[in-house]
C-alpha cells in the first residue's frame, strides 16, 4: 500500500515539475503571471479555512461515505 502511494506521488510530482517548467517558459505575459500569483496567494489563504470546515475525523468521514451505484 505504502509503496503504491509513493509511486503515485512521485509520478505526479514529476508531472507537476514538467508543467511548472513549461509555465515559467511560457509566462512572459506579466498580466498572466500576476494573476497566477494572486490566485496562488488566495488559495494559500483558503487552506486555513479548509481546516476549520473539514469534517472532524477525515478518515472516518471518507470511510463512511458509501454509495449505492446509480446511473
Amino acid at each position, binding site marked *: *500500500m505504502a509503496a*503504491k*502511494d*509513493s509511486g*503515485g*506521488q512521485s*509520478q*505526479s510530482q514529476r*508531472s*507537476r515539475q*514538467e*508543467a511548472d517548467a*513549461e*509555465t515559467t517558459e*511560457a*509566462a512572459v505575459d506579466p498580466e*498572466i503571471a500576476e*494573476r*497566477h500569483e494572486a*490566485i*496562488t496567494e*488566495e*488559495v*494559500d*489563504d*483558503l*487552506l486555513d*479555512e*479548509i481546516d476549520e*470546515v*473539514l*469534517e472532524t475525523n*477525515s*478518515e*472516518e*468521514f*471518507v*470511510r*463512511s*461515505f*458509501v*454509495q*449505492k*451505484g*446509480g*446511473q
Partner: protein
Amino acid sequence: MTVRRIMGTEIEYGISVPGQPGANPMVTSSQIVNAYAARPELSKGGRARWDYEEETPLRDARGFTYTGALYDPAENLADEDSGLANVILTNGARLYVDHAHPEYSTPEVTNPREVVLFDKAGEMTMAEAALRAAHTPGIGPINLYKNNTDNKGASYGAHENYLMSRQTPFADIVAHFTPFLVTRQVFAGAGRIGIGQDASEHRFQISQRADFFEVEVGLETTLKRPIINTRDEPHADAERYRRLHVIIGDANLAEHATYLKVGTASIVLAMIESGVFDGTLGIAEPVAELRAVSHDPTLTHKIELRNGKRLTAVELQMSILEQAEAYCGPDADPATREVLDQWAYVLDALARDPMELADMLDWPAKLSLLERYREREGLDWGAAKLQAIDLQYHDVRPEKGLYHRLVARGKMKRLLTDTEIINAMTEPPSDTRAFFRGRCLSRYPSEVVAASWDSVIFDVGADSLVRVPMMEPEKGTKAHVGELFERCAAAKDLLDVITAD
C-alpha cells in the same frame, strides 16, 4: 447555425448520514425530497404524480426495443406506489428518488446559460431540502454531494439531454460525437483522487466518471456504461425528434464548466446534424483514451487516431473548435458567439497551464487546493485528509462545501448571481413547454393530479381526467400561453380555452 436547442441536465446526488454508513439511501433520499415538498408553494394542493404514459426507456436509438430484464418501466410506477418520493416543481423541474439517490432534473431550456441557471437552482434546492430535513422531527442530518463516485466502486450520474433532429443518422452521432466526448473532460472534468473504479491507486485524475465507462455504444446506464448512450425516449414527437441522452459527464459545481460542457456539446451536435465532420478525428481506442486523458492532468498525453495521427486532448478540441468557427461563421448569434469565445479562451489557457483556470473550472480549482494543502502538510496522495477535501469540494452546503467557500471568497468566476438562481428555484424558463407545466402547478395546484415532460393531467370535477399532451417542447411558452394564465382563474377556464382552440 446556433447553440440554441432544447436541453437540460439531470443530476443524481451522493447522499450520506454522518456516522451511519448503513443508512438506507432510498429512505433518506425520500426524506430529502419530501422535506422539500413541504415548501409552501408545493403543499397547497394534493401532490401531483408523475405521468409515465409516454415513457419508453427501453427503446433503443438503433431501432430495436430492448427485451432483456435490465430495466422494467412497471417498476418505476411501482416505485411511486411504494412511496419513493417524487415532486414536480413550479419551475417545471422534477425532484425525485432515482435508484438510491435524490435526483434533480432541470426543466427544458433553450440555451447553455439557462442550463447553468437551472442546474444551479437544483443544487440550491438540494441544499434547502437537506436543511429542511434536518429540521424535521425524527430525521437526523443528511448530507448531499454533487459528485459522481464514492471512490469505493460506485458511480452515479450527471446526465445531459439534447433534443436533435430525427433525420440525423445515429451512426453519425456515434462517429463524430465520440471524439468530442472523450476529450471534453479537459474543461468539464470535476477532478478526483484515485485511479480505478475503487480508487485503489492514489493519484489525481481529471474526471470523476472516466473509469466507469467500459464500452463505446449501448443502452445501459448502470452497468457496462457506454460513451454514447442509445436510449431513445424523446418525450416529444418521435417522428421529428430524438433526445440524445449523454451519460458520460461529471457533475460540475463551477458555472463556467457546466456552461462550456453543454454549450460546446450543443454546437458540435448542430455540426453533426449538418454533416460537417469528415471522420478524420476518429479515435482508435475511445474507451482506453477516455481514461488515459483523465489520468493525465498535465494534458500531454497523445491520443492515437484511427488514421494514425496523434493529438493531445486539447489539440483535438482545438481542431473541433476550428471547424466550429468555420461552420458558425462571423454571423453567429450572440449566444453562440459567447460559447465559441469561451471555448477558445479555455483551450488556449489549458494549452499554456491548466492552473490558470483554477478560478474558473472544477478540476483545476480542486487540484490547486489539493496540491497546496498537500505541500503545506507534507501529505501523500493516499492521505485521508486529501480524500476528505476531494469529497467536501462537492458538499452542497454553502458553509461546508469547499467549492462554495471558494465562491464566498470571490475566488471563482461566475456567470450568475444568487438572486437569479433563487428566482429560478420557483420560476420556470419562459421559452419552452416547462413554462406551461410550471405555471399549471403554481396556478392550479389542487387541479393538477399528474404531469410529465410531455403532459399535464387535470381533475376539474368532470367524469374523467383531462390530459393535455405537450409533444412540442417549444410550445406552451410564455409568449404563447402567458396571458391565458392571467385570464383564467380556474383550471377549468384554461382547459375550456385550450380545447376550444
